[in-house]
């Protein structure tokens, strides 16, 4: 089975950051876990990021769709339990519908390993080890993987107060940036 490739030689962070910032569209298949003191949920995760839209699908064990969200700067459309909802703010809509706090507008940056302006610390491999956002999110990167010319996160955790989100990325697909 496709094992996780350890990253190659060390490249200065500024170079990696510039390279990652050029990526305009990608897709991931993985797993997400949402853990709060009251409840725990797990789902398989599909995320398609494009320049001006994000499409997120969460599925149960037999492939039943639990949640789908299509996010654009103008509005977000969410389907949960076969009902469709719309709103201008993806974070607010998702938390209203599910009670989960998912920072959907920033996750595309964190998933790729970029801090999007928040304070961060590098790990020993010149990649982001942790991010502390000004509104209380703490992201830690557990490990990375080689994906063609890129080194991208394979497992990360996001904490906010007592809520914890674990994301494992089983498969990356990065569309080549067209200069």
């Amino acid at each position: 089975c496709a094992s996780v490739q350890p990253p190659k030689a060390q490249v200065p962070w500024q170079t990696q950051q510039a390279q990652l910032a050029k990526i305009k569209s990608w897709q991931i298949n993985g797993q997400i876990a949402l853990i709060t003191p009251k409840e725990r949920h797990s789902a398989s995760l599909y995320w398609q990021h494009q320049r001006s839209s994000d499409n997120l699908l969460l599925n149960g064990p037999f492939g039943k769709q639990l949640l789908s969200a299509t996010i654009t700067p103008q509005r977000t459309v969410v389907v949960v339990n076969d009902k469709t909802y719309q709103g201008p703010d993806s974070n607010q809509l998702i938390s209203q519908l599910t009670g989960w706090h998912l920072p959907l507008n920033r996750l595309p940056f964190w998933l790729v390993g970029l801090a999007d302006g928040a304070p961060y610390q590098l790990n020993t491999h010149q990649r982001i080890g942790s991010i502390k956002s000004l509104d209380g999110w703490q992201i830690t990167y557990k490990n990375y993987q080689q994906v063609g010319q890129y080194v991208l996160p394979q497992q990360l955790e996001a904490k906010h107060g007592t809520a914890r989100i674990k994301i494992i990325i089983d498969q990356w697909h990065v569309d080549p940036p067209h200069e």
Partner: protein
Amino acid sequence: NAEQTLRTKLQAISQFSADFSQTVVSPDGKVIHQAYGHLVIAKPGKLHWQVMRPNHDEIISNGQTIWYYSPIVEQVSIYNTSDAIVHTPFILLADQRPSTWVGYKVSATKQKYTVTSTHDSQQPAFTVQFDSKDHINEFDVIDNQGQRSEFKLSHFNAKPNIAAGEFSFAIPSGTEIDDQRQPHE
């Protein structure tokens, strides 16, 4: 009729094990998830579903109780098999008692049978396909959003050796227990 034929075919398979490969296709045709694992089914209503890759989720039913163990959240959710029927069409594969099949209708084209619920629109429809030896080679689950989960079976074994604790779940220490069983009067 189609339901009778399907139940007869399923009745003939008292128990089986197989490897499965699961492909989930979104309503607009994108492959959004792939998983591989092993399943064991025995009558009535017994199931052991072990995902091997990419995660290690496990679903076990002993006919009365279903355990859904998700290692990523270190939690096991427990359901009554009768309540959880919405959860898994596999219980229908493993249980041909008339009471279990009340509220389902079956249509068929050649070796492919489609089962839909007549009483619960939330419940996904599913299709079962048989090979020339009347072994199940594929089944698909289609939810109301048009999302399809295709399970292809291989190494179908109609005489599996079933381990003693095959259909009960030993809860690992430190696991969060999420008991969803509604008490039955």
